[in-house]
């Protein structure tokens, strides 16, 4: 089966059903005939191998028109009453749009990868389309099912809130991410690295500390957060402390594992040169540990922000992302809550992405980086 076959097939069928149903509504859907045409074209294309042009332009264009047609039906059914045929038409249009989005993603995934920056942008395209489909679904469902805004606001309201409350969001971001998460991350990571070196140097320590460390790492941090607030006060230091506690062990375990990653032959080589401990570390063990260290950094980068936010639930000054989230839930300003969550997810993903990119540069030599 070629890319997008089933999705295209399904999309055209659902659109046809939607088109037919939309003709039954009180004010009949004006573009019904056009819609039917588009759906039939997609169907023909999927079923008729001869019509499948070699390139991607034709199917892509059909695909996009199909999605647009689906959006049209959905918008129309949303605008008119949600009864009988319109409701069903809406449902089928949703299915059509979902399949259309999926079809688009499979096209994009199948496209030959360009090189350099264009390729990197291209790699983002598929997830973006996927995300847009999800967001559209969210918007449409919240509206159609008239979900109360105090339970789940539509993405459009969240977007509006982000633009109107940017200054507050920024203040919270600085408080939680820059002060709490980043400082905690830096301290925790640095401490873990130093500790790992010590542990690695003394086998006795390694055998004793790693199991105990594993046990301590299992302490759920939600429990440590109130303790940290008690110890380090309300402002960001206690958040940083929670973050330190959260990132320390993943980082330590990964680094220790990484420092043991050099294989026997690579170590023996160092021995034949009668290299000192420091030389071995700098020239062999650290570089060999890099893939593991970055693994730890990536895990820690998502934990850091979460930790800082959670810690704010247990006491905070009157700013910060966690403070805002919990306060605004109480005030039923759910759009603000989701605005903060959006910022958090964005910041977290970018922070993660930063380490992933750096990893690519530093461990360019590792097979997992060379594979793609």
């Amino acid at each position, binding site marked *: 089966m070629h890319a997008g076959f089933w999705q295209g097939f399904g999309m055209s069928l659902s659109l046809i059903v939607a088109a037919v149903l939309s003709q039954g509504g009180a004010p009949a859907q004006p573009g019904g005939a056009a819609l039917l045409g588009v759906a039939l074209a997609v169907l023909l294309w999927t079923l008729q191998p001869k019509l499948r042009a070699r390139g991607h332009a034709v199917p892509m264009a059909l695909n996009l028109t199909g999605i647009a047609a689906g959006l049209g039906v959905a918008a129309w059914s949303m605008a008119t009453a949600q009864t009988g045929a319109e409701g069903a038409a809406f449902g089928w249009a949703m299915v059509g749009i979902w399949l259309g989005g999926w079809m688009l993603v499979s096209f994009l995934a199948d496209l030959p990868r360009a090189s350099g920056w264009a390729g990197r942008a291209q790699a983002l395209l598929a997830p973006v389309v996927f995300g847009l489909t999800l967001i559209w679904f969210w918007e449409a469902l919240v509206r159609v099912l008239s979900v*109360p*805004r105090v339970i789940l606001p539509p993405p459009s309201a969240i977007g509006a809130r982000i633009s109107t409350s940017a200054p507050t969001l920024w203040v919270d971001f600085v408080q939680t991410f820059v002060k709490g998460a980043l400082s905690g991350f830096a301290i925790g990571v640095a401490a873990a690295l130093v500790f790992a070196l010590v542990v690695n140097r003394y086998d006795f320590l390694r055998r004793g500390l790693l199991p105990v460390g594993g046990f301590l790492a299992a302490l759920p941090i939600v429990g440590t957060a109130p303790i940290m607030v008690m110890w380090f006060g309300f402002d960001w230091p206690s958040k940083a402390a929670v973050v330190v506690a959260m990132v320390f062990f993943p980082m330590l375990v990964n680094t220790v594992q990484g420092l043991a990653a050099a294989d026997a032959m690579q170590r023996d080589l160092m021995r034949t040169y009668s290299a000192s401990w420091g030389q071995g570390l700098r020239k062999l063990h650290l570089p060999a540990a890099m893939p593991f260290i970055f693994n730890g950094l990536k895990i820690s980068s998502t934990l850091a922000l979460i930790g800082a936010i959670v810690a704010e*639930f247990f*006491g*905070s000054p*009157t700013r910060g992302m966690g*403070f805002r989230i919990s306060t605004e*839930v109480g005030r*039923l300003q759910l759009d603000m809550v989701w605005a903060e969550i959006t910022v958090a997810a964005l910041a977290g993903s970018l922070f993660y992405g930063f380490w992933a990119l750096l990893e690519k540069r530093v461990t360019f030599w590792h097979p997992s980086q060379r594979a793609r």
Partner: protein
Amino acid sequence: DDVTIQLKWVTQAQFAGYYVALENGYYADEGLNVTIRPGGPDIAPPQVIAGGGADVIVEWMPAALAAREAGLPLVNIAQPFKQSGMMLTCLADTGITGPEDFPGRTLGVWFFGNEFPFLSWMSTLGIPTEGGDDGVEVLRQGFNVDPLLQRQADCISTMTYNEFWQVIDAGIGEDELVNFKYEDQGVATLEDGLYVLEENLEDPDFVDRMARFVRASMRGWEWAAENAEDAAMIVLDYDDTGAQTEEHQIRMMGEVALLLEGSNGTLDPEDFERTVQTLLGGGSDPVITDHPGDAAWTHAVTDMAFD
């Protein structure tokens, strides 16, 4: 008939009336099958009722009115608590003797919709809450009284029936504390009322159900006020967390009984008006911007219940 009530906080004597009514069969007498949902940190009762998770909720009036402004039309149908139990409790050795000493201090405040009384008070006093020399530094107080014990705050919010006693239990004498009751400061707002969604009140069956519910609940409250110890034991039996202690709950019941005095469950429109005025009062950033009008409460339920 089924009724689900969402409490504002965890199972404790603050809500004894409902548990007593359930345990003693008052609800059953009214032909009601009542489910009590305890609350907890970060459970917003208005959200629960909006999602259809409850028929009626226990909520503070400031939060309920704020929810109204946020587009969730809550209506007060009954008001068992006549008085406010809220205080600001300060350590005496900080030298605070009156509200005029607040500027420059650090105060602990509950948020999550519970900050409105405090903010109103401060704006009545004209004290900014953004810190600075002439303002107060506000801490988002967590679940407990540690900020005071650890001297991270000069004053913290307490309830007469709960946190205050925790401070005492921690070994600080009453003479070492200075308390500012919101009642005494003239900024009291109504606490622990029963609220339902406006649209439901159009349904006579619902009103009838609520009337029976309120009647039974008030029976429960009366019994609880008279039998504090037994009521506390009933609460303990319903506590799934196993965290509450006998001593604490009995004491809490005693204090709560004081707040009930003067109310048969019917909302006094004057109390409502006072609360609204407090919330509207002063400052650049009032809690509610418009007078909610009389749509925010109704006597329909209590009238039916107590006739």
